[in-house]
């Protein structure tokens, strides 16, 4: 899960990294109040989980509280790369002398974390890395040893950062490990005219798998992007909303991803990704079907199950259960194979719902579901 800038800032502050004074609000009036508290002149920054806010007009300087209110009014509600701005952060402006870039990222191939640092901060680091790779230092960190003072000094030196940044590098490693993050990035990290090292903007991605030992972000983690996501998450379903018309349910992330592709190859667009997981019960299946059927964009549904741990008869029971609780108005194409497939098919045959059709192959079922969605 990505954090908002203001949440990342809060974490940095707790770990002893200097940050500008700032507060967050969801209203223009609130922006005026905050600007007053912060001394009048402020930077107003859209809080969205995507980059490129500055270019999109989501970051602006306001000279006084009245200007802050006006600016906040302009920014709130803006759409930045498909993300609606629901809140703004107002921060005290800083006298920047030099800008740097530092981050810790997961190196999947090496199975460890990598420090990435550059004396050229404040810009698109991927661009810098592509055009002038020498300007970016990439140093692996031994997970058992972590970033000690000596390691931090090594990273700073390799990147051409001033020695004073070493302390921030150690503290940032603390954010990564103690908060169970998979990415921490400070861009820019700045040296002010007064000689302080300050994290001006930051990005933190927390590990969803570590949720069980992390309570503080519970509320914001529950704040999903849409009502269907929230509904699915509350039922323990793995759901991603997409913008097509064929609803897709399957078991196992790989098979569901594959199902989306096969449907797309048949000339329709998938409306969602929904994985009922391994060993799903009839209830899970019914919950999943309910989530998908409540999406008005869905015109047909493809249930694609290869029973391994999951038993096809449980899936069929779930479909029948859902048919008893919702009025089905959209056609359902079902393909069951693997564990207890014959029993599952028989259950659906017995129920004989006019809108439920069975198919024997994945490709054939996908074509059928796609045709139904396009013609429906």
């Amino acid at each position, binding site marked *: 899960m990505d954090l908002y800038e203001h949440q990342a800032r809060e974490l940095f502050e707790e770990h002893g990294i200097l940050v500008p004074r700032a507060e967050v609000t969801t209203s223009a009036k609130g922006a005026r109040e905050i600007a007053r508290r912060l001394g009048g002149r402020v930077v107003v920054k859209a809080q969205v989980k995507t980059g490129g806010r500055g270019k999109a007009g989501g970051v602006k300087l306001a000279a006084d509280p009245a200007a802050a209110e006006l600016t906040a009014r302009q920014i709130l509600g803006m759409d930045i790369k498909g993300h609606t701005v629901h809140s703004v952060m107002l921060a005290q402006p800083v006298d920047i002398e030099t800008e740097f870039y530092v981050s810790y990222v997961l190196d999947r191939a090496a199975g460890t974390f990598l420090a990435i640092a550059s004396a050229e901060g404040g810009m698109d680091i991927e661009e810098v890395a592509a055009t002038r790779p020498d300007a970016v230092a990439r140093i692996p960190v031994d997970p058992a040893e972590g970033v000690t003072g000596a390691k931090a000094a090594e990273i700073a030196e390799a990147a051409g950062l001033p020695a004073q940044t070493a302390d921030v590098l150690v503290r940032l490693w603390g954010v990564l490990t103690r908060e169970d993050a998979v990415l921490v990035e400070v861009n820019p990290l700045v040296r002010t005219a007064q000689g302080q090292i300050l994290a001006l903007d930051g990005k933190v991605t927390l590990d969803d798998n570590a949720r069980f030992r992390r309570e503080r972000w519970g509320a914001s983690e529950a704040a999903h992007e849409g009502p269907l996501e929230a509904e699915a998450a509350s039922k323990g379903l793995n759901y991603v909303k997409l913008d097509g018309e064929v609803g897709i349910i399957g078991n196992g992330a790989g098979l569901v991803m594959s199902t989306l592709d096969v449907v797309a190859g048949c000339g329709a667009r998938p409306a969602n990704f929904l994985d009922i997981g391994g060993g799903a019960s009839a209830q899970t299946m019914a919950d999943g079907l309910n989530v998908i059927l409540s999406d008005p964009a869905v015109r047909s549904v493809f249930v694609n199950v290869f029973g*391994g741990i999951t038993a096809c008869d449980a899936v069929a029971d779930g479909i029948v259960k859902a048919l008893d609780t919702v009025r089905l108005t959209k056609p359902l194409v079902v393909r069951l194979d693997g564990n207890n497939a014959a029993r599952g098919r028989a259950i659906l045959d017995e129920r004989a719902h006019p809108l439920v059709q069975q198919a024997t192959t994945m490709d054939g079922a996908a074509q059928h579901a796609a045709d139904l969605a396009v013609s429906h």
Partner: protein
Amino acid sequence: MAIYLTKESKVLVQGMTGAEGMKHTRRMLAAGTDVVGGVNPRKAGSTVDFDDRAVPVFGSVAEGMRATGADVSVVFVPPAFAKAAVLEAADAGIPLAVVITEGIPVHDAVAFHAHARRQGTRVIGPNCPGLISPGQSNAGIIPADITKPGRIGLVSKSGTLTYQLMYELRDIGFTTCVGIGGDPVIGTTHIDCLEAFENDPETELVVLIGEIGGDAEERAAAYIRDHVTKPVVAYIAGFTAPEGKTMGHAGAIVSGSSGTARAKKEALEAVGVRVGATPTETARLVLDRLEAER
């Protein structure tokens, strides 16, 4: 022959006395796996009856290995305890640890993989279905009865796509099918399995299943170009996945322009690997290729 797992393999199950551990130990035994013990410090000294076989429970992996000569451990313990379980297995010097557990924090995985490498323990997973050498042994949760022994090797990031391909190619059969898992940091990789299949005289062709996220498939392609002489047929899932969304597996995410299915497919095709558009077409490409070899 087979890779990593044969009928001689002696298997311990960490977490055997839990609900999942029990269910899958029964299935493994039914598939012919020589399950020689479970591990649970609180139940050491007891036994668990599985139909016609009583399986002893040991207090630690080390104790189980001493008593039985076990050389494989299958880990079913919950995410919060998985790190300790793998560290214990590696410290005991087990040659192979198969980590089925899904949802292990990445910092824990990074820590236990680093330790296992130092100890010389091969880890498969986490968040994987394990591996099966049909007719010989099954370590994990792959259904054993959908295929048979044969001449194809299979390595896959996805459990259900593994089953799908095993089923589609059931008439040819497999030497070993390895589910390496869909997490960002895993132990055994596509490359490790390609190397092992290349060296296995009974494997005639390798099926490689990948998905969005990371660059493991691109690296596998480079390895195939330089080291693999046997035919490889591939399937990649996730062409329609949008950027920035995790598609079920913790590792399955397109970040910016990296990790796309298209890039992976192109990298594989550039080294002569045929890539199927659907699982069924992939199976057909395998059959065509085996036919052509005759």
